[in-house]
């Protein structure tokens, strides 16, 4: 990515950003904080004004673009706060001891305190699974519990190398 920076006397600064192919994004940064955005289909075509942002708005939009404002969803990191308890997505390794056991036999709630509230298997989701549901390698358990309970559970889903 190449960025061309130019001073615009009396106005501020102009940044021209190559955004893939021949396309250019032109940002005009005014001294008063206002930002004007233009789009050019190629370096030689006429710029088309996209929109104008105030300084405050531009910082917020900038934070969103940067990913600092709203985190994008990544399934193995999602945590939804529910008071003390949180929901976490846990991968079951192929070689974990609980593979091929039913939920009832694995006695996860008794051993860790955490509950399995759903199982994601490929593109299928098994909601509210019963005790006779068999766990297979590669399942993603949607679990509910405190941080300690979930840490305990995560140690059980790892492959048993011993």
């Amino acid at each position: 990515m190449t960025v061309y920076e130019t001073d615009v006397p009396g106005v501020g600064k102009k940044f021209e950003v190559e955004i893939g192919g021949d396309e250019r994004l032109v940002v005009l940064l005014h001294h008063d904080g206002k930002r004007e955005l233009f789009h050019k289909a190629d370096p030689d075509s006429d710029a088309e004004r996209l929109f104008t942002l105030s300084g405050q708005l531009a910082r917020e939009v900038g934070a969103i673009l940067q990913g600092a404002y709203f985190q994008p969803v990544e399934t193995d990191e999602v945590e939804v706060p529910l008071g003390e308890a949180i929901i976490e997505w846990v991968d079951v390794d192929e070689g974990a001891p609980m593979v091929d056991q039913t939920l009832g036999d694995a006695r996860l709630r008794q051993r860790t305190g955490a509950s399995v509230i759903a199982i994601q298997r490929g593109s299928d989701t098994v909601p509210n699974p019963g005790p006779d549901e068999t766990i297979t390698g590669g399942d993603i358990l949607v679990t509910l519990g405190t941080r300690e309970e979930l840490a305990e559970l995560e140690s059980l889903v790892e492959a048993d190398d011993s």
Partner: protein
Amino acid sequence: MAALLLEVGIALTAVALAGTLANRVGLSVIPAYIVVGILVGPNPPQSVLGLPLTLVGDREFITVLAELGIVFLLFFLGLEFSVDQLLRDRRRISAAGGVDFAINFGLGAAIGVAFGWTLLETLFLAGVVYISSSAVVTKSLIETGWIANAESGPILGTLVFEDILIAVYLALLAAVAGGGDLESAAVSVGTAFLFLGALTAVAWYGSNWLDRFFRTSSDELFLLRVVGVTTLVAGAALALGVSEAVAAFFLGTGISQTSHVERIEHIVAPARDIFAAVFFFSIGLTTDVTLLADVAVLLAVAVVLTTLGKFVSGTLSGRFYDLGRRRSLRVGLGLVPRGEFSLVIATLAAGIGTGRLASVLPAFTVGYVLVMSVLGSLLIQRADDITDALGASGG
């Protein structure tokens, strides 16, 4: 006191209304400020439909505010003057700026000679018609979106070149016009260069010190320091017979080396806007429109020739930047507006000159700027029609 306050109130309100109106119809505010100054000022028209229209006199406070307008216009010009950009792109900028100067200053000089003006008068006239209006041009560039296109390169480059040239020009002219014979002219040119040299040296070598001097967490104190120092330097310059405008320009370039540029743009620009608006307004106040009749022929000749001059020189400049035909023509159209700096030159002429410089040139310049700022804006707004008509639709 009441009468004075009322006059200030009328003046500022009139300027505000005129600016709003100009904005509404999409034209530059500069001609609007001048026209409203003519309307409410002591010169004709003095009444409309029986209503008296001489509401604001040419008072001392207006003269002082207008003078501050000149000082801060040039101070900001210096502040925003990008030495780096000039050096980085010096080959193309000097090519474009050189052609622009040769054609347009040359045309102005030729017009002066053809109308039988003296050398000094001709030099002033050439300056007035040479320099484009940074304010009007930049505003038009943003409104049309050209600012994001390739044609903004030669346009802004030419403006940068004109900025530095006008500083040198004003310094020389102010010094020469003040003195009578060759010897006193040489002395005043020497004084000017000593003063400006000292100012530049302080600004360059003392930039750390300047930086510390302006450093404060209070916006109020910051504003006072910038306005105070700038006005003091300009006043000292004028007392020594050096152009206050050029001193302000050099102070601005000096401060542009410090870390305060952004803050000045934020905090001092509103003060500049008020002073500059009053400057344009006061130009209107002192303009006697009946004098325009005497300069009608000169005005018509200058408008036609110098519009074509900028159009040709700009189009050539576009070629130096390897632009296509249509974009080059846009550069030509984009540089047509004249404005604030032509008026600064005319004010200088009126202040020091006699004869034509004191009456004809200011009247001519007002008429010229009124026409060129409006005509220039319109040409830019209608640029696509013009380039299509010239058969340059592509590139």
